[in-house]
């Protein structure tokens, strides 16, 4: 089995994501019942998206690596792992050898768990299958085994459903979304941290009584909502730190403004390119939805959607706005951290969104929980950066010469990556079996009602 897969991997590596993914998407689309013409167009669009993403990532890596190295040379502070943002992670994941398999694998896991009654979520959010593929591709980078990577991705598909089922009740109640759950691993990772920290805060007199309102915060930090402004400002600030040279002011100004402009460009262009990828996935996603809906039967199920639907809520926006400067500060003061934040400051609402129902929308608690999650994330990302970079190269993205290592808050900051890579590289397939057993036990416990199918929180709301 592994030799067959390895053989296939050689072909994959030769052709690259731009050729192979379109072919796979076409085949998967036709199998799921999309019209061949529509499926072909979908595949072609996805190939085009990869070419576009590769161009923008090249631009970003070049400017960010230059800045990171200049900062190290100018200040002696080593921040040589650059944050390339979740859109890059998504592209790396779908372009990886695991990414080719993730759509059929993810659907198969969902159908199997629905039919056995272990989950109540029908995950129609095919787009976010990239998280599963991403963890799988890290395992491939760590172990060299494609089989193990795909098995890990399959377990992650189960974990996403666990996250959805576990948080369904509080999410439906707090966000007012009946019949919806959120099988999203980037957002789900905060759940255990939020429950523990919330429990601790409840036992600290004074702190437990503070409830921060959301109204005023949003207006004051409005400018951070605009990605291109954020890119420009961060670019200029990083440029000043890196390229400051008192003896050559004109030279400094040139480099600083160029950096600001390049980073502003990336903030607009990268999401645009990833949007093309999304457009290509739509026909497949629609076909997958009706394919699974037909097979799920008539039992009562929740529709699993992207946590993007939660992000407009004032609690998510406000706490994320406060967390942006905190995250930047953490990146500077944390000893041993090598990550320099950039592209993923915009993803922070996704990191904290699922904490909101647990703390009843209390922004102060969300900020505390978010800050702890991010602080841990810096160390996870620093440790995992070589794997992240290796996975990117394996997916065919061209690393500029003497480039820095890369990471992203989504999903490089997640403890999930640390756990799956450790289990898979220490214990091999046995490690993957342990992951599967844990996820299976979690799902079974939810079904049996032993976790009460809610994530604490009921008494606050």
């Amino acid at each position, binding site marked *: 089995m592994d030799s067959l897969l390895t053989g296939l991997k050689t072909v994959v590596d030769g052709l690259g994501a731009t050729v192979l993914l379109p072919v796979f998407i076409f085949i998967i689309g036709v199998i799921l019942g999309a019209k061949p013409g529509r499926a072909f167009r979908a595949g072609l669009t996805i190939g085009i998206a990869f070419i576009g993403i590769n161009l923008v990532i090249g631009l970003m890596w070049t400017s960010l690596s230059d800045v990171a190295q200049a900062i190290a040379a100018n200040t002696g502070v080593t921040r040589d792992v650059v944050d390339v943002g979740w859109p890059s992670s998504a592209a790396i994941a779908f372009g990886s050898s695991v990414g080719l398999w993730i759509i059929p694998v993810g659907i198969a896991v969902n159908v199997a768990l629905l039919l056995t009654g272990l989950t109540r979520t029908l995950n*129609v959010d095919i787009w976010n299958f990239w998280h599963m593929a991403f963890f799988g591709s890290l395992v491939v980078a760590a172990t060299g085994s494609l089989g193990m990577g795909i098995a890990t991705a399959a377990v992650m598909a189960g974990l996403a459903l666990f996250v959805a089922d576990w948080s369904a009740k509080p999410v439906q109640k707090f966000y007012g979304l009946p019949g919806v759950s959120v099988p999203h691993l980037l957002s789900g990772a905060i759940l255990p941290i939020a429950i523990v920290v919330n429990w601790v805060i409840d036992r600290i007199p004074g702190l437990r009584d503070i409830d921060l309102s959301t109204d005023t915060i949003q207006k004051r930090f409005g400018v951070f*909502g605009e990605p291109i402004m954020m890119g420009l400002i961060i670019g200029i600030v990083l440029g000043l730190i890196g390229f400051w040279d008192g003896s050559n002011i004109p030279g400094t100004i040139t480099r600083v403004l160029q950096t600001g402009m390049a980073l502003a460009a990336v903030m607009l262009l990268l*999401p645009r390119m990833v*949007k093309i990828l*999304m457009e290509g996935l739509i026909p497949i996603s629609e076909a997958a939805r009706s394919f699974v809906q037909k097979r799920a039967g008539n039992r009562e199920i929740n529709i699993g959607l992207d946590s*993007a639907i939660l*992000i407009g809520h004032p609690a998510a*926006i406000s706490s994320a706005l406060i967390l942006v400067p905190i995250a930047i500060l953490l990146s500077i003061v944390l000893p041993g951290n090598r990550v320099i934040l950039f592209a993923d400051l915009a993803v922070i609402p996704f990191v904290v969104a699922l904490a909101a129902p647990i703390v009843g929308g209390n922004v102060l608690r969300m900020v505390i929980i978010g800050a702890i999650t991010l602080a841990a994330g810096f160390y996870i990302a620093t440790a995992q950066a070589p794997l992240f970079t290796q996975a990117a190269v394996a997916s065919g993205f061209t690393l500029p010469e003497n480039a820095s290592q890369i990471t992203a808050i989504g999903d490089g900051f997640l403890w999930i990556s640390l756990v799956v890579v450790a289990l898979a590289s220490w214990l091999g397939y046995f490690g993957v079996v342990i992951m599967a057993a844990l996820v299976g036990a979690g799902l079974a416990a939810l079904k049996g009602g032993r976790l009460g199918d809610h994530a604490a929180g009921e008494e606050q709301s």
Partner: protein
Amino acid sequence: MPRKKIVLVACGTAVATSTVVANSIEEEMAARGIPVETRQCKATEVPGLIEDVDLVVSTTPLPPNLPKPAIVTLAFLTGIGRDAEIEKIAGILKG
């Protein structure tokens, strides 16, 4: 030839779910002969971009007191109640 109507489609990222909604609106309005252009943004960017649009459609809560008609719906993602939302959108854009 009537003026092209502009629909601002918002979600959390301006990338994922808003693309699904924007594509659906473009296809369905084209089928009804309503010329329409969609633009995508994050929910937080809506107040800055709303000036020259005719309608806002979002998959996530929007800031309050918007000066233009706005619809928050998950119908395009779940498929449930999709036709009703499309008729509602067509009604607003025709008027």
